[in-house]
């Protein structure tokens, strides 16, 4: 059985995420000045852009986990790759919705098709949405893990290529945040943005860990159930050991 403890360090990570998210929101609304050009609506930037950066980096990290799986054939890397992509897709939904709200307020339209940044993000998002049907159409566990890893690597390589291609194209109206000139952000805005970005990254890591720990617990329970059904003596010993671990919701009385 896999002895990896995905929940290790989860509490500290969760506390850090909550504290930093709180600090980021306080900085956004009480410290960062209103944008001279866009006014108050620019505050959406501090949630929209960190979400987008973290989601895209998550896709690339998933590719790394995919490589680790293909090299080692360990299931835990495939699980990590799957959960990372899953979380990036959830973040991607938030990016698209918050971006649309911002676009409506700033440009008067929910979506603009001739803006490379928006369309390229949508392409990446839709590409990764196809990961689910691919993964769940394969029943054999090992084959599924291999194919999913191959997908994660291929699509993960597409993310930076796509990013560079968009950078090389002429932007029409979408502002540049990270540029060689520093994105033209004043100090307060830059600090707020960095705190928001770190907070979002911590939140992402926390949610990935929660999901991994939950999946791992379910897999262990399934294995325990099989052991109990197949080999009563060994299974009972395992179940007793599991149930007598402190802080469990139920325990076996002596």
């Amino acid at each position, binding site marked *: 059985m896999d002895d990896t403890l995905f929940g290790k360090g989860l509490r500290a990570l969760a506390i850090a995420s909550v504290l930093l998210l709180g600090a980021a*929101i306080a900085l956004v609304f009480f410290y960062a000045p209103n*944008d001279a*050009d*866009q*006014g*108050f*609506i620019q*505050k*959406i930037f501090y*949630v*929209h852009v960190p*979400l987008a950066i973290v989601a895209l980096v998550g896709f690339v990290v998933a590719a790394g986990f995919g490589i680790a799986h293909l090299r080692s054939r360990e299931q835990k890397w495939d699980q990590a790759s799957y959960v990372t992509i899953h979380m990036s897709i*959830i973040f991607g*939904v*938030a990016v698209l*919705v*918050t971006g649309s*709200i*911002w676009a*409506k*307020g*700033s*440009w*008067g339209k929910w979506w603009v098709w001739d803006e490379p940044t928006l369309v390229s993000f949508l392409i990446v998002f839709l590409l990764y949405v196809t990961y689910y049907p691919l993964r769940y159409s394969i029943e054999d566990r090992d084959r599924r893990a291999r194919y999913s890893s191959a997908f994660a690597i291929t699509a993960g390589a597409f993310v930076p290529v796509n990013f560079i291609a968009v950078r090389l194209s002429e932007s029409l109206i979408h502002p540049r945040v990270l540029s060689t000139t520093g994105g033209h952000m004043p100090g307060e805005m830059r600090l707020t943005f960095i705190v928001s970005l770190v907070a979002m990254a911590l939140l992402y890591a926390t*949610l990935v860990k*929660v*999901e991994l720990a*939950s999946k791992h*617990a*379910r897999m262990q*329970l399934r294995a*325990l*159930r099989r052991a*109990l059904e197949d080999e*009563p*003596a060994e*299974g*009972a010993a*395992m*179940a*007793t050991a*599991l*149930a007598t671990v402190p802080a*469990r*919701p*139920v*325990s*076996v*009385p002596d």
Partner: protein
Amino acid sequence: MPALPLDEAGKYVAGAYGVFVVLLLVYVAIMATKLQRIERELQLLTRLAEKRRTERT
């Protein structure tokens, strides 16, 4: 386009941050449901183990 007045822009900002919070809450609710399922399964296995132990003794 000129910058929106605060009362107008406030709706959009609240909407964007609201979407983020709602998504987070939905995710937490889904995870809570999964946790309940794990807890139920654990209870079931504990009862099964208890039964097996009683049978052995």
